[in-house]
């Protein structure tokens, strides 16, 4: 155990933990996006999907949520620690410094990450915990089973242009974060191969576009439903 602790305190151990927690989070996003597609099939289908997750599959979903919370906490803690250590490593800044490989995405990980954290708080309050901050969720009944009207709550939220707009901005931040994060996580875990690395760089960017683009398209689709229940 002592050795494990030392590994986690080392610079490489920290970046590998950062990468591993990042992978679990961005892998979760694709599952989340796939689930959200259910909304295209109408209120009943989507509400039943939500009910399925929180009631019939709670034995799986709750542990997964706990793992994700831990992953986020570790990711945040390491981000803060790495940022402070990196600042201390260069106490006097250069008067002039050019970048040749650094991208806007890689340079702004801390900023996009912090903004995404705020988004997660709002998003989880709004849709995971019964419409907190949005006046709660009404109840609907299908085949004698009462469940939360997640679909209606979502449609009402996204019928407001500013809500959809803010959501799109948040997804763009996720795009930026993943653009660097996906390939960075693999490099940290030691995956670099002359045959696959160029593809990994491309695939990382493609994955970022797929995730953020997918959520954005669904949000815009929801906006054009004008809060109605088709």
């Amino acid at each position, binding site marked *: 155990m002592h050795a494990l602790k*030392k590994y986690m305190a*080392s610079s*490489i151990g920290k970046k590998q933990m950062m990468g591993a927690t990042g992978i679990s989070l961005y892998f979760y996003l694709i599952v989340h996006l796939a689930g959200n597609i259910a909304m295209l099939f109408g209120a009943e289908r989507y509400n039943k999907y939500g009910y399925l997750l929180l009631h019939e599959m709670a034995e799986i979903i709750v542990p997964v949520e706990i793992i994700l919370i831990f992953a986020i906490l570790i990711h945040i803690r390491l981000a803060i620690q790495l940022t402070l250590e990196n600042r201390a*490593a*260069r106490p006097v800044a250069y008067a002039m410094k050019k*970048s040749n490989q650094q991208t806007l995405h890689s340079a702004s990980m801390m900023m996009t990450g912090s903004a995404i954290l705020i988004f997660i708080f709002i998003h989880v309050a709004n849709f995971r915990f019964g419409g907190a901050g949005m006046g709660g969720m009404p109840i609907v009944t299908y085949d004698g089973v009462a469940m939360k009207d997640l679909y209606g709550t979502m449609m009402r939220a996204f019928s407001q242009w500013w809500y959809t707009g803010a959501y799109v901005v948040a997804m763009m931040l996720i795009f930026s974060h993943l653009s660097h994060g996906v390939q960075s996580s693999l490099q940290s875990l030691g995956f670099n191969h*002359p045959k696959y690395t160029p593809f990994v760089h491309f695939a990382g960017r493609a994955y970022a576009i797929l995730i953020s683009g997918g959520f954005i398209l669904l949000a815009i689709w929801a906006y054009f439903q004008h809060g109605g229940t088709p």
Partner: protein
Amino acid sequence: MNFTLRVWRQRNAADPGAFQEYQAKDILADMSFLEMLDEVNIDLVHKNQEPIAFESDCREGICGTCCQMIDGEAHGPETGTTVCQLFMRSFKDGETIVIEPWRARAFPIMKDLIVDRTAFDDIIAAGGFVTANVGGAQDGNNILIPKPDADTAMDAAQCIGCGACVAACPNASAMLFVAAKVSHLAHLPQGRPEKARRALAMVSKMDGLGFGNCRNHYECEAACPKEISVAHIAKMNREYGSAALLSDQDPSS
């Protein structure tokens, strides 16, 4: 050619330091950057002023002592080159050139453009070697090494320890330097038996010296005068991960 130089002057480690402007006049396009500074220094000596302190040794791009941040880039604007191999034809006549020392907590400034890179020696001393006494040079093919392994090891072994990777890294991380040695020796049969111990000892030393953490910006690779690839960093990440988690060696050893 004529240039205006903005050079960092700092009397000693305790001095706060500041930029000073100098004129470099009648410089030939085929002079190296260091020869240009020599001209400026001769001028300063004639005027009874303190010459600009900078380091150089081989002046042929193999020793790694000529460390300068030129116009915000380690070793200047050309890729794959050291300051001594940078020529004034790479600059425009009349240009203003900003010259700074490497800036990193682990590389304290000693005077003007000279920094103390003892930290690199400490990392090598911690494990960047093979402990077996191998005696004299052996016959070339006594130990058979596959050509691709020998090539990869040679790519990494090209490191001249100049510190440009640390200087260029936004986080002042020494990962590329350490990775080059870990990867170099791990690719060869002579270095392989001790690879776990070596990776653990060198990384632990690096962490203790106050370098920053790698965040995969890859600025080091772009700045390296020997163009050492960040693939060696991934190799070190693998070596360190498996050494720390799977080998019987202790991470602090």
